[in-house]
């Protein structure tokens, strides 16, 4: 008789929550800080506790288990509390700081760019900086949502490039519940600063089986999530799912696409991307960020530089346009790259289609 252990399915937010919870149980120096990471701070005596839990509810319930000393709701002061995270990381804690939306990093960019990322180097290697910065990002894309999204230009951005540009900072972008848990645990255990960008609208696409035990997904690696012979589609975050949708359609017309999930933006796993392109001889990079000075063009440039001889066609990028994110759902859907644009880019490489 064989039994199959029931593998639970978790949502993206639940997987991150479990990762943080398991690590906090293991290591008493881990603290969580941010705006409404619990919610209702200081009102426990009135029966209010754990009112919110962050935009993805990824920190919900942590205050119940670990208390207000380790789960710290902060005032609206990104520069201040992220700086406190930097100082705490230099002095014996492993803080996980939530910047509610990536759009808010303008309020604390110095702490990321000049402080956290550079400390280890400019101090001659004498300090560890085990700091995790979690932040939500992205548009609702073409999803016809009745609630959420539609947040406009200052709450919908995908600011990969301004983070990946900074030497010393690791930047990861999970795309599924499985890799979200593994990357979050890796980030917490890393002795340096790691930014985790969590898409707000992965929805059911990201839900999936997640082992109960703690495990890691390595930082600094891309993952080939679908093998193919004819073209490599590089996706980041939500765009990996768009690439997979496009690959399904392309297969129906006889084009066998490989899909690479760029789980870490920096340091970039160039080797695996180059290896993939050396087999498929074509590359389309799909990026929800705006294109000027972007990850899409960085990946394209690296492949052009180091893999040109293996290419049979020009590299294509599919990105958002160089505009702010618009509010109207019609415009926002048009702004966000979708499978149709990916398919169209692939067609252009084969000289087919519209």
């Amino acid at each position, binding site marked *: 008789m064989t039994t199959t252990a029931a593998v639970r399915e978790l949502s993206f937010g639940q997987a991150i929550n479990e990762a943080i919870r398991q690590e906090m149980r293991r290591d008493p120096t881990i603290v969580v800080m941010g705006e409404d990471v619990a919610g209702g701070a200081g009102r426990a005596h009135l029966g209010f506790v754990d009112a919110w839990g962050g935009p993805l509810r990824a920190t919900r319930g942590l205050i119940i288990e670990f208390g207000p000393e380790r789960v710290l709701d902060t005032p609206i*002061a990104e*520069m201040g509390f992220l*700086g*406190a995270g930097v*100082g705490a990381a230099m*002095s014996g804690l492993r803080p996980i700081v939530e910047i509610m939306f990536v759009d808010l990093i303008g309020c604390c960019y110095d702490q990321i760019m000049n402080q956290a990322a550079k400390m280890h180097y*400019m101090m001659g*290697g004498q300090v560890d900086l085990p700091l995790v910065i979690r932040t939500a990002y992205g548009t609702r894309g073409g999803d016809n949502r009745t609630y959420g999204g539609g947040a406009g230009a200052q709450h919908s951005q995908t600011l990969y490039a301004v983070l990946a540009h900074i030497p010393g900072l690791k930047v990861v972008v999970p795309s599924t519940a499985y890799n979200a848990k593994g990357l979050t645990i890796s980030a917490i255990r890393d002795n340096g600063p790691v930014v985790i960008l969590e898409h707000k609208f992965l929805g059911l696409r990201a839900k999936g089986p997640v082992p109960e035990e703690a495990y890691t997904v390595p930082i600094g690696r891309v993952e080939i999530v679908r093998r193919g012979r004819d073209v490599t589609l590089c996706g980041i975050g939500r765009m990996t799912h768009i690439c997979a949708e496009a690959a399904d359609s392309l297969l129906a017309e006889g084009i066998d696409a490989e899909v690479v999930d760029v789980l870490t933006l920096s340091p970039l796993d160039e080797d695996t991307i180059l290896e993939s392109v050396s087999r498929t001889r074509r590359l389309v990079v799909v990026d929800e960020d705006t294109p000027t000075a972007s990850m899409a063009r960085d990946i394209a440039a690296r492949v052009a530089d180091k893999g040109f001889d293996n290419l049979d066609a020009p590299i294509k990028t599919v990105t958002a346009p160089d505009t702010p994110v618009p509010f109207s759902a019609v415009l926002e859907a048009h702004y966000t790259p979708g499978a149709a644009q990916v398919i169209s880019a692939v067609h252009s490489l084969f000289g087919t289609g519209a």
Partner: protein
Amino acid sequence: MGAENMSREIEVQSKTGSHSISSTRTAGFTQALPSREKLLWMYEHLTLIREFEERLKWLVETGVPVGAVHYYTGQEACAVGVCAALEPNDWIASTHRGHGHCIAKGVEVHRMMAELYGKTTGSNRGKGGSMHITDVRVGMLGVNPIVGMGATHAVGAALSAKVRKTPQVAASFFGEGAAAIGAIHEAMNLAAIWRLPVIFVCENNGYAQATPVEYALSVPHIADRAAAYNMPGVTVDGQDVLAVWEAAVTAVERARAGQGPSLIECMTYRYYGHHQGDDTHRYRAKEEEEAARARDCIRRFREQMLDQHLLQAEELDAIEAENRKKIDGAVAFAEASPLPDPADLFTDVYVPASEEKRQ
């Protein structure tokens, strides 16, 4: 020592006129005098900072490439008075004008000098320079030239002490110019609502680069801002190391007792320009500079110690001679030390995993 002996007025001269403030010590000296050992320690560190900075100035003027530097000369009593109230495992966070804070907290001068020379033996292995000198072994969290950011890091260190349940406190040095930036206010609010053991130390030297304080500050004194964060705020004579020390001891006691942060504003003066190339006479009067030098913190402390027969001239002279030797040694060490290898450009970009470090 009677309170009347300690009573003083601080004259702050400027082109727009003069105003005076009363030292809080006119209210009476609440702390007992430091021990004789502590008084000697103060004199040693006041004069070591002065010796370091004067030698550095000479090196700069003779063309030694030590990078961008901001001399601390004139403000020594602030760093020494505060650090005299701290324990070795307490933390400090510093500013761009940080050499004095480093020395007062115990960073070795030969490693500082080697850092300024860009040598591998420097405190930061030549990767930091004057504006990033750090030594976490002695609780020095870093010279930090992004104005105001150090305050937030001190808050983080204090949070760490609270969560880890250690008695450590964190002192944050910042200038009156930094009092205008949001990070300072966010840091003070966080420290106050979380009742963290932080001592905010504002060194009000009158100028943010070439911008005078009376232009950039909306209140007469930085210490007035403490009320907004429900913490004690005092203004002390920053040219009097004992006044600074007394205020710091009170703040440290409060912090260790779990009563939260305090703000100390030290009225002080930088003798030289904002940085090594700055001509102060384009924005402040010669008479003002002379008046400030007449209140030199080292000379006043020495005279006070001798007048009151607390310390002897011979031992103070011996300390100064020893300091000169120490700085001679620091310069020799820096000059003899190796320059980094080009491959060092690529080391320490990322923090290694714990198992890699053990190898």
